[in-house]
């Protein structure tokens, strides 16, 4: 196992690249009018899905439009990812055990920051309402669930990692395994 640690690390780091072809996170709304649901997918550099229908439904309660311009993160997140992949490859090939662990912790740290950023956006999206909205329910905020299921008026909202998101988790776990098995002395 030990002699494969380097290969394992390289594999884990490269599989992070899947985020360019798979979405990270998915929010779905279900309602009587939408029995099969409408969804948006959040990617490393884009948002896709039924955005226009999300916006049409949400404008009644004064929620702001979802647009790619509204997420400056989408512009630079991909470069951070590319940077992490290059760093990971260099670490995997030339690095020592402690470097492996450093990369893993850095990745986990960035992931936590990303999730915090996501939560902050959700909070604003659900609370920062247009005062001229047609439908105003006193005390009501429309923040989607951070993780899981939540009922909001006639809607049930679901928020879970999408395929790419699960792959990130698996990649980090594999990288951690590589770090764990890496021989302490070997370069």
């Amino acid at each position, binding site marked *: 196992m030990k002699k494969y640690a380097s290969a394992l690390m390289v594999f884990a780091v490269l599989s992070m690249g899947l985020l360019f072809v798979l979405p990270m996170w998915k929010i779905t709304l279900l309602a009587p009018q939408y029995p099969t649901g409408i969804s948006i997918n959040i990617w490393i550099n884009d948002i896709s899905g039924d955005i226009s229908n999300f916006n049409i439904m949400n404008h*009644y309660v004064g929620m702001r439009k979802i647009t790619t311009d509204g997420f400056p993160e989408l512009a630079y997140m991909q470069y951070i990812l590319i940077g992490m992949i290059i760093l990971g490859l260099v670490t995997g090939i030339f690095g020592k055990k402690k470097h492996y662990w450093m990369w893993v912790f850095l990745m986990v740290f960035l992931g936590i920051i990303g999730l915090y950023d996501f939560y902050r956006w959700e909070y604003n999206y659900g609370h920062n309402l247009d005062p001229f909205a047609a439908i105003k329910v006193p005390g009501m905020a429309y923040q989607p669930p951070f993780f899981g299921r939540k009922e909001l008026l006639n809607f049930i909202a679901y928020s879970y990692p999408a395929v790419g998101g699960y792959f990130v988790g698996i990649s980090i776990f594999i990288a951690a395994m590589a770090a764990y098995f890496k021989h302490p002395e070997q370069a």
Partner: protein
Amino acid sequence: MKNLKKIKDRLTIIVAFLLLAGLASCGQQAKDSEKFRKGALGSDAASKVYVAPGEYDEFYAFVSGGFSGQLSVYGLPSGRLFKVIPVFSVDAEKSYGFNEETKPLLETSYGFQPWDDSHHPELSQTAGSTDGRWCFINGNNTPRVARIDLSTFETAEIIEIPNSGGNHSSPFTTENTEYVVAGTRFGVPYPQQDVSISAYADKFKGVLTFIKVDPQTGLMSIAFQVLLPAFDYDLAHSGKGASHGWTFFSSYNSEKAHSLLEVGASQNDKDFIAAINWKKAEEYIAQGKGRDVPANYRHNVYDEATQSATSNKMTTVKVLIPEECPGLVYFLPTPKSPHGVDVDNTGEYIVGNGKLSADLTVHSFSKMIDAIEKKDFDTIIESIPVLSYQHTLAGTVKAAGLGPLHTEFDGKGNAYTTFFISSEVVKWKVGTWEVLDRAPTYYSVGHLMIPGGDSKNPQGKYLLAMNKITKDRYLPTGPELTQSAQLYDISGDKMELLLDFPTIGEPHYAQGISADRIVPRSKKIYKLEENQHPHASKNEDATKVVREGNEVHVYMTMIRSHFSPDNIEGIKVGDKVFFHVTNLEQDYDVPHGFAVMGFENAEMLIMPGQTETVTWTPSKAGVYPFYCTDFCSALHQEMQGYIRVSAANANTALTWSLGK
């Protein structure tokens, strides 16, 4: 006195006897009446037609509206009505024939026709099976054939049939939809001219028409017409399997009567089924035997990309004359004014439903070919050989009922025939011609339908009988009553009545098809990026109002829950205003409607991604409200706007806005 008493006694006895007899006969009459009214319902009939809320029906039924001119779509076995597709009649609800996009569909060589009589729906077929691509239907009064696109359930095309009067024997497809056909139910002057009606025998002709269908686009074009004697061509069906390449048309009035036909056209013991060898016709056309005859007819096509129809003037047709084309047409003598001519699913048997008879006549295709090869002709009428009746006869279904009209097949060797006069459906065995079962209908059944029952591959689970008269079957609605359809389970030995439901117009004929052949192709929206309507506005920024002399073009959009623009000023009395309205929604089942107070027009019901246009010429100054007519959203009632109309000589500036 004594005599008087005797007489009185006798009278009492007689009166008592009469009373008793009267009571008894009343009782019998009530029993007989009850027998006519009620079918024997199996105890589980309800569960067999119960489609639970949210569940789907197994079959679509496309039921013609007869004199309504439309085509209705039902689910089977539930009998639930899903949609009425406007085809030959205007429909104010959908702006069909009112908006600028669909008006050209109803143009004919006689001008705009707001109505017709739609009789026989016919689904397109591939390799003898219904393929769920298109449904064709004939317009009977002003001869036409329409094609409905089953991805949108909208009329896509209507072609007029020249040299015809009453397109009844239509549209009946060939097994790969190479052709749909048309045939004239009236003999008409050929060419059409001002001539004495009494010159019928000399100047009138009967023309049968073969319409080519493009296998990719479905677009129709008249390939050729066949000039025949002026009989009344009633119904048709094409061969299948071995008989593929032939089409059979029934006829009545071989007497060539032109007045009081109910007597005059019922004298000959036998009329004819005309057998047309259309593969032979193709050869003759290739050899240049088709005469280019001047004709005046319209070909109207709706383009889904531009979402608009155009009406094209056509000027010639190719006509084949039997005298010049030996082997093209044969007549099969068939008793008693045959109505339906139905080819069984094997393609071997051709059933003539002699409507003034108790019997059914069945011809054999292979025997017909043999008679042709042996030249076993009874006579020749206007260059058309009449085949020997005994030679082509396969068998007779004896005394099955009264007034046979139409037969379909279950694919398991059984045939089902409607009997109008005795008001029943009779099941019989193909080949042995024995009657197996009979079931009453309520009342006076015309056509029947088994899904795929006139194709090579029937799905013989249900049978739908379509009735002309309902009398006491439903709650009364004044003198005008609904007509009806009745559903039978035919999966067992005995037919079992399951359901009886009212229909639109006259349910003349129907086609049925497994839902799974339609559902995957059904469109949910029109994609906005594919909308090539010349007056579409693809977003709110593109909306505007443009004056061109006395014409004002309003480019408007609709989305939940507003119009853009919703305040318009600067329209003047006498202007012709065009509202080009685009529904910007891209979501399933979110149509919006549009109507203006007093606009002397029909509402538009616009589907997501679609653009439609209505015109309005305001005659009075004032402020006119308009609004969304389809309950679209929680703020549907707020989806409204105003148009200000000023006097013709006013100088109100042309302005438009939203949310200002």
